């Protein structure tokens, strides 16, 4: 359903992504790994509409999405999380999850204006905050939360829109190992529940190995390997990129 071909992104003279390609099928969790600077986040930014590639095609359900705005993509079901969670000041955890909900599934503005929407608040809490251990923090402002919690809020925010494709940009980077595995387990459960496809950029190999159905390795902006977790560890090219020439 997601098909990217020959995607090339340049920043001035630097080629950040070079003829990158990827296929993601419904309900699949694909790991996107590679050394720092390989262009993983840049590629994800292209899929989510933040960057417009200089060349190539990205198709989503047979629709060309290159050049589409992030808000359009969010509306048709492409959700994403961020590597660096923003420090937002006044909004609470629940507020942010509601924003995430509204980009895909808007609820009546006038109704909210006059009556609020307590039932939706509780639904969102049960569905997206409770499983991530955030229910107690739903009315806390984001800046008082730990880094791991803020990352979890970002994931809850992206999931609240019930995306068909979820792009996770280093969801567990900087998160304590126990929390990281809980998060990874949650991603799997959500995939089972919503049936969405997931592309996960991540450096923590144990998390990637235990979560992903398939792994794509990027180096210097291009795909150098695609296959199972076991294949990645034995592939000579991947070993060379990660470990250097022996």
């Amino acid at each position, binding site marked *: 359903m997601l098909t990217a071909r020959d995607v090339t992104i340049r920043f001035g003279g630097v080629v950040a992504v070079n003829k990158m390609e990827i296929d993601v099928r419904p309900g699949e969790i694909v790991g996107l790994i590679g050394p720092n600077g390989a262009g993983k986040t840049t590629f994800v930014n292209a899929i989510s509409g933040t960057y417009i590639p200089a060349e190539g095609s990205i198709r989503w359900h047979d629709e060309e999405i290159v050049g589409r705005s992030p808000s359009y993509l*969010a509306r048709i079901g492409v959700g994403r999380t961020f590597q660096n969670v923003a420090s937002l000041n006044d909004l609470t955890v629940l*507020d942010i999850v509601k924003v995430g909900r509204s980009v895909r599934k808007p609820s009546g503005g006038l109704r909210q*204006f006059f009556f609020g929407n307590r039932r939706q608040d509780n639904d969102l809490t049960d569905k997206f905050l409770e499983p991530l251990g955030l229910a107690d923090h739903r009315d806390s402002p984001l800046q008082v939360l730990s880094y791991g919690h803020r990352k979890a809020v970002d994931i809850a925010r992206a999931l609240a829109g019930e995306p068909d494709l979820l792009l996770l940009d280093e969801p567990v980077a900087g998160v304590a190992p126990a929390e990281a595995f809980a998060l990874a387990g949650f991603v799997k459960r959500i995939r089972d529940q919503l049936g969405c496809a997931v592309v996960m950029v991540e450096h923590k190999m144990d998390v990637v190995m235990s979560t992903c159905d398939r792994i794509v390795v990027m180096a210097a902006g291009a795909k150098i390997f695609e296959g199972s977790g076991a294949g990645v560890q034995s592939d000579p090219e991947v070993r060379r990129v990660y470990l250097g020439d022996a």
Partner: protein
Amino acid sequence: MTLRQILILLAVAACILLLLPGLGRYSAYIVYVVAIASIGALALNLLIGYCGQISFAHGGLLGVGAYAAGNFGNAGQDMVVALAGAGFVTALISVMIGLPALRLRGLYFAIATLAAQFILEYLFRLLEPLTHGVSGLLIEPAPFLGFGVSTDRGYAAVSIILLVLSLIGVSRLLRTDLGRRFILIRDSEMVARGMGINVARTKFWAFAISGFLAGIAGGLLAFTTRIAAPEAFEIALSVDYVAMIIVGGLGSLPGAVIGAFFVVLLPEVVQRLGEYFNAATQTSAIREMIFGLLIILFMIYEPRGLNSLASRLWRRWRGAGTKPAKTPSGAMDLRPSSEPAE
């Protein structure tokens, strides 16, 4: 605003309305001047304090509201109709002023609004059929829902009622998806965009709603002063309003009222002092200097304004003991945004 806060607000408003008949003309005058300025400051706080779009065209927008309401009123409309009409006209102009915000951010956009302010000032002088040019548009008293309100007490009552409605309206607005998007765009336009928010559409609504309220405030100014003249809506007025929301508190509803109170009463106090020291001629210069000094002091020591100062003192007085979360980052950053590239 919680239900309890709304009830407190209504109670305070009811007290003021009940006390009105006992107030002298001067007190009633102070009440409506502060209430009208509060509505105007609320409009600007919505735009700057909540949506992060710095505008120096607010004085001009109030002027648009004043002329529009004046023309509707002189055409024999009820004050309610005239004010609503002024709201819509001003919303339209506000959206036009907001158009550069689709491309420009932060201080660059602020400069664009400065240009808009000067264009409006020019138009007030030029569009004689609507504005009567430099001599100003004289405005007939208009009834409010059929009641004659053309006394200081009547204006005070109308202004208080409209201020309460505006406060409740804006506080409810902030609890909708649109309101949350405003705040997100203020905190980081890039993050908001990445989350899939249509930034252009959200800004459109911020300008429209802020403009609508500015139109009502301008309309009230017109009806209470009976005249709309170009020199009343110059850049100095824009600066006054920016001062109100900075002194009162950016992104705070009570802050808009506190700031309006402060900025409106300051000249009165300076005036009295000037008369006391037999230096009445220098007072306007002193006023401007005090404003400038206050803005600088607030930006350095209390970027969240009097409202935050007041709530801190209140907590200390109650001896809650819990130190409030320090939010230096909570103040809106007026410097050009320096968001990371990735």
